[in-house]
């Protein structure tokens, strides 16, 4: 340890987290190979030679406080490769290892990172990779559609799929069971009373107090990863825009960025700025709607209708300026499909100003309304420790004092050219998540204005270059829910062979299980709404 410290002092490069990680691996006798130059910018790629060292690598990462970002597998016919993306201080690093297809066995990361728990179960269900030491052996994404032998994401599984017919309901899932005096269960979902996506929540409660909450997701597994195979870049961008309907800009942005990096192509600066504007507009629309929904869940009609009205006006502006209310398919590989005309810029400025003024008025009223405050203050705590353990993203993390924002910590174009402020709240309750949204909206409005100010002239799309077979790319953007990761690998003829989008919901869903604890049952809906995870983005 002393030696290490001296080494650190003597060699300044040792502060580079990736190198420190590599050194520590070497200390532990793990054979690792840094690929240079990295095929996956902005991340560095590290190959772990022996799959049996996979767990040790996670242990090292945990000891150095890396954040487990995402994990995905690929079927390379003879070998399955498993990759995991880690992050520390804005530095991304991808670990990769290869295992035998016939005996797909790998030590699990879940004992070190909770964030690895569900993604590994996802990999096991869809690739048939057995993770040893995984604390939770229950199935996750695969409900009853296929037997446990089938691995739908392997190349051997036909792309058009094997329609399983009508599958039986997943009634015998072995839920966690709380025991004790007068404890009862409330099964809620997958069909909910409102028009929302499906997901099952199993509560264990005693009276009104929640003792335990367990989520059972995966009801909207659409096979996004499988149907992406063999697509052209344009059609992948369209698919990415539909991974989670409310994050259409975010996912399309990430996918296009990944494909462009794989193709060694850079979108023109004007296109990047327009992408930024689109992303911020999406953020504002969703935050408005979320805040409205939080108010609605506590029966506060006034704020619900007012915020809903503002969102509607905003969406109509989207329609008028970009031709689509939700901005779907506005981002294409190589650039964007719609330009900001001069008049539109002025209009956008004006509407931003109006929105800001209206928000000021409205939020002053809301702030003074103690009946709303009574409901959301001290409801649904997520402690800083839990947020850290989880690596909670976006407003969920930021409301608990976890400050991480891709736009600020690992800036990409256009955010490397403007100043991004990251708002923070530290209470970790529903009110914090409410107010952090509001602050983010303010930041977003400002960003839109400064992006408009600095908007360069030029093309809005670069011609597409077909990338090499096997080229891979990583897209990392800050969607409105938080960091979105997107991995793309091209196959023959410039077609996609692997697409893995990681929505922030995948990370944030488990936070809800913690947030709900100790609250009373009727406060759950507002807790849920304050996190507002995407079912579709989680289930893929």
């Amino acid at each position, binding site marked *: 340890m002393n030696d290490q410290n001296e080494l650190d002092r003597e060699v300044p490069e040792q502060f580079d987290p990736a190198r420190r990680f590599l050194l520590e691996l070497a200390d532990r006798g793990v054979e690792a190979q840094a690929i240079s130059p990295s095929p996956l910018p902005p991340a560095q790629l590290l190959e772990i030679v022996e799959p049996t060292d996979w767990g040790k690598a996670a242990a090292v990462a945990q000891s150095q406080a890396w954040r487990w970002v995402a994990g995905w597998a690929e079927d390379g016919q003879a070998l399955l490769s498993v990759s995991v993306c880690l992050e520390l201080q804005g530095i991304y690093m991808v670990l990769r290892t290869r295992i035998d297809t016939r005996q797909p066995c790998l030590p699990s990361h879940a004992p070190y990172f909770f964030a690895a728990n569900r993604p590994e179960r996802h990999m096991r269900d869809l690739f048939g990779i057995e993770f040893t030491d995984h604390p939770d052996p229950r199935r996750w994404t695969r409900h009853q559609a296929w037997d446990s032998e089938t691995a739908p994401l392997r190349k051997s599984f036909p792309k058009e799929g094997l329609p399983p017919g009508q599958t039986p309901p997943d009634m015998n899932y072995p839920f966690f069971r709380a025991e004790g005096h007068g404890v009862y269960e409330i099964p809620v979902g997958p069909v909910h009373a409102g028009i929302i996506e499906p997901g099952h929540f199993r509560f264990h409660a005693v009276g009104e107090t929640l003792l335990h909450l367990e989520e059972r997701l995966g009801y909207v597994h659409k096979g996004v990863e499988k149907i992406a195979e063999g697509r052209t870049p344009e059609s992948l961008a369209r698919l990415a825009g539909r991974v989670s309907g409310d994050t259409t800009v975010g996912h399309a942005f990430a996918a296009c960025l990944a494909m462009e990096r794989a193709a060694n192509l850079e979108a023109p600066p004007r296109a990047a700025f327009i992408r930024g504007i689109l992303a911020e507009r999406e953020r504002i629309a969703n935050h408005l709607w979320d805040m409205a929904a939080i108010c609605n869940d506590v029966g506060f009609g006034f704020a619900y209708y007012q915020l809903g009205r503002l969102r509607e006006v905003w969406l109509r502006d989207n329609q008028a300026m970009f031709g689509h209310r939700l901005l779907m398919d506005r981002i294409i590989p190589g650039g964007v499909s719609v330009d900001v005309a001069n008049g539109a810029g002025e209009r956008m400025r004006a509407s931003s100003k109006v929105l800001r003024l209206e928000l000021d008025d409205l939020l002053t009223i809301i*702030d*003074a309304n*103690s009946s709303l*405050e009574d409901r959301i*203050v001290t409801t649904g705590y997520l402690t800083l420790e839990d947020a850290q353990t989880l690596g909670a993203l976006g407003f969920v993390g930021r409301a608990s004092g976890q400050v991480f924002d891709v736009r600020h910590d690992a800036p990409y174009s256009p955010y490397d050219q403007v100043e991004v402020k990251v708002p923070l709240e530290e209470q970790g309750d529903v009110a914090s998540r409410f107010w952090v949204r509001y602050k983010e909206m303010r930041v977003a409005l400002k960003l839109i204005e400064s992006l408009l100010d600095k908007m360069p002239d030029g093309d809005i799309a670069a011609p597409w270059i077909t990338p090499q077979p096997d080229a891979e790319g990583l897209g990392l953007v800050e969607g409105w829910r938080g960091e979105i990761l997107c991995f793309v690998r091209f196959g023959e003829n410039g077609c996609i062979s692997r697409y893995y989008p990681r929505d922030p919901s995948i990370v944030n869903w488990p936070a809800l299980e913690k947030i709900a604890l100790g609250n009373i049952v009727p406060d759950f809906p507002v807790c849920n709404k304050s996190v507002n995870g995407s079912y579709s983005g989680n289930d893929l």
Partner: protein
Amino acid sequence: MAITELSHYQQAILLLASLIVLTSFLMLGQSRLLRLVFIFAVQGILLAITTALAADVLDSPHLYISALLTLTLKGIFIPIMLQRLVLNMGLHRDMETLPNPARVMMGGTGLVVFSYYVCLPIVKLSPLITLNTIAISMAVVLLGMLLMITRRQAVAHVVGFMSIENGLFFAAVVSTYGMPMVVELGIAFDVLVAAVLFGVFFFHIRSSIDSLDVDQLNRLNEVEK
């Protein structure tokens, strides 16, 4: 005197008296400072109206002046000052939740009964028609004290103090034919000075203990714990 035998003016005074007690109770149960200040202002306004009505009923015109004074000072000036103070110090989102508001409130009703019981002999002595409101004013005083006991925020203490003063003033208005003008002006001036002094005082407390929580003053104790 049964209420049906009184004139409407007198009935209105009684009604206002009971509303003033209600405001005292509302203050007792209020957890947010801005609300507290607002209710205090309402109490001041009610007091001013009562004074004006009493001026009419008792036919003593100088009470009009004191009504006006009450309105400007307790209904408008001091509340606005306190509100500014709360906003400036960023206390408006602080919530001071009582451990059991219902119990405190019920204790408050006990105080009302008690003050009624105590005042009964006095009321029986005098033929003045509005005199039984003296129990009400006594209750307002006691509730103001209760407010000060149950709260930790210095601002709440000031409001409690002012509401005690309101109770005394109310008693003076309804049970005698009003105080001499000089005394009233003096009191009004005193209140004003007190309010300003409190304002200064807050900033001092704040700068020395970083909070307006009066329990924090315990730290200023010289005895090392």
